[in-house]
């Protein structure tokens, strides 16, 4: 029997003037970011998937049907975990008993995540006997995430889990979320309106507006679309995964290899050879040369092929998509440069990359 992996979700519901109408087929593992402005319906979609919001439709998670026509599993029979935006710890239970609440209700044979494992993943050892009111906002959210994981879910839903936290707590929690993304083999749906969070965490992205999906796809390809469905404007650019291939100790640089080339980064002694990193290259940080100019200060010269030239936000600039091997890049150029260099799709050029940022 073939089991279709992934999450197939089709929902329709309306209340007041708002209408949700989505039909999605999402990957069976990794982080899918549901992205959009507040009120676009991303939280409603998450609640429909959880069964907290009744809606017409169908839902299948890694081959198991949770909802179809009139048949709909009640929330407590769906193998999911939900991390809410605001604090949702039981105020009458200690951290330990909060964590145990879901854990105890999972049959032992079905437990994939051990109690001690979740506690150490989220760094909760010293907090177990505290009451929720004695925790900071960031600590509470870490407990909520651990409590959710301890149900060994088939699907993890996170509704802006960081939005209620201050910048410091966000920075503290982010590495924990990355650990989860890399350790769990389940789909994670992550609602966010923060491009920074999406850039760091997501593998797949769904852009919503007014109850509908306006763009969807793998993060790398979707961010590299010249029509920029995410409206990143000045921050338009691509994200790619890379591996540190070599460290140059004399000049404090390291080489990040990606599928189709490499980029030199500043080495601040936090990176090791073989380490996987995620880097961002903004469209405004790339310029194009027709030949390999060696006498200039830019460290990064990457050969690439022009794939597409499209209009940009203003008539004075153009968005150029380039392919270096299998990796897409976006360059924002003035329309005059495009004209004077007579750039054409299919043309081989050199990309001068002025800045590369590591996002995790």
């Amino acid at each position, binding site marked *: 029997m073939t089991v279709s992996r992934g999450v197939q979700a089709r929902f329709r519901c309306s209340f007041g003037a708002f209408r949700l109408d989505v039909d999605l087929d999402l990957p069976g593992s990794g982080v899918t970011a549901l992205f959009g402005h507040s009120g676009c319906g991303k939280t409603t979609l998450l609640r429909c998937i959880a069964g907290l919001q009744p809606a017409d439709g169908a839902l299948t998670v890694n081959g198991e049907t949770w909802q179809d026509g009139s048949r709909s599993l009640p929330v407590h029979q769906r193998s999911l975990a939900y991390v809410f935006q605001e604090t949702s710890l039981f*105020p009458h239970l200690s951290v330990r008993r909060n964590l145990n609440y879901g854990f105890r209700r999972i049959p032992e044979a079905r437990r994939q995540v051990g109690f001690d494992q979740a506690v150490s993943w989220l760094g909760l050892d010293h907090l177990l006997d505290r009451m929720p009111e004695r925790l900071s906002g960031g600590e509470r959210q870490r407990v909520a995430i651990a409590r959710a994981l301890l149900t060994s879910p088939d699907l993890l839903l996170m509704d802006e889990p960081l939005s209620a936290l201050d910048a410091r707590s966000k920075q503290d929690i982010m590495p924990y979320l990355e650990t989860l993304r890399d350790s769990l083999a389940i789909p994670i749906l992550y609602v966010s309106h923060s491009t920074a969070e999406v850039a760091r965490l997501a593998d797949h992205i769904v852009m919503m507006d007014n109850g509908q999906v306006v763009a969807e796809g793998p993060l790398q390809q979707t961010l590299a679309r010249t029509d920029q469905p995410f409206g990143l404007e000045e921050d338009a650019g691509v994200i790619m995964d890379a591996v540190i291939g070599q460290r140059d100790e004399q000049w404090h640089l390291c080489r990040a290899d990606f599928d189709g080339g490499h980029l030199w980064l500043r080495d601040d002694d936090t990176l090791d050879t073989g380490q996987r990193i995620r880097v961002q290259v903004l469209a405004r940080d790339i310029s194009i040369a027709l030949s390999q100019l060696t006498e200039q200060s830019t460290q990064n010269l990457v050969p690439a092929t022009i794939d597409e030239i499209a209009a940009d936000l203003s008539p004075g600039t153009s968005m150029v998509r380039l392919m270096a091997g299998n990796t897409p890049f976006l360059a924002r150029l003035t329309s005059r440069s495009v004209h004077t260099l007579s750039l054409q799709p299919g043309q081989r050029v050199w990309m001068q990359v002025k800045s590369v940022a590591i996002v995790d």
Partner: protein
Amino acid sequence: MGPEWQAVWLTLKLAGITTLLLLIIGTPLAWWLARSQHWSRQPVSALIALPLVLPPTVLGFYLLIVMGPDGLVGQLTEQLGLGLLPFTFEGLVVASIIYSLPFTVQPLQNSFMTIDQRLLEVAATLRASPRDRFFTVVLPLARPGFLSAAVLTFAHTVGEFGVVLMIGGNIPGETKVLSVAIYDHVEALDYGAAHWLAAGMLAFSFIVLLSLYSLNGRLQPGVMK
């Protein structure tokens, strides 16, 4: 057991049984009132609150008629072989349940309404069934409400007089509760005996309310250890 102690014991028995039964009846009723959006919520609330505003004699009068030989309830109990309820201890229990109902339902309803709906959603996503959620989230968080409801119901039943007189009469060991016994003593100008019982009631009521207020102060959810 002297007649005074008999009245004290009967009163405590009546209040105890009434409180127990009312917590069982009142909990689902209060839960429904706190959560339902049904149109019948308002009329039901008003009906439950009636004993707060009606003179006890009015309530007692209608109970006497309904539970009497020509009343609907009376005919039913007779057909079931239970006999007639007026002037029996069981009749007093039934009357007390109706009379004290708002004192159980209102504190429970208030405490149910303050429970964050989000916590119940969280519990559902952590695999707790509706019943499970009620016992593991609602009950612990509504503990102060249950305490208030139990104490108020008990105390209010102890202090009941008009209804008892209307449908219970004055049968020692069966329906002669404290308040009726005090009334009897005063009627008979036996002020000494009346003082003895009345002062006891006064002290009892004060102690009950005092312990309620101090317990409630300590039992706020989240502060419990």
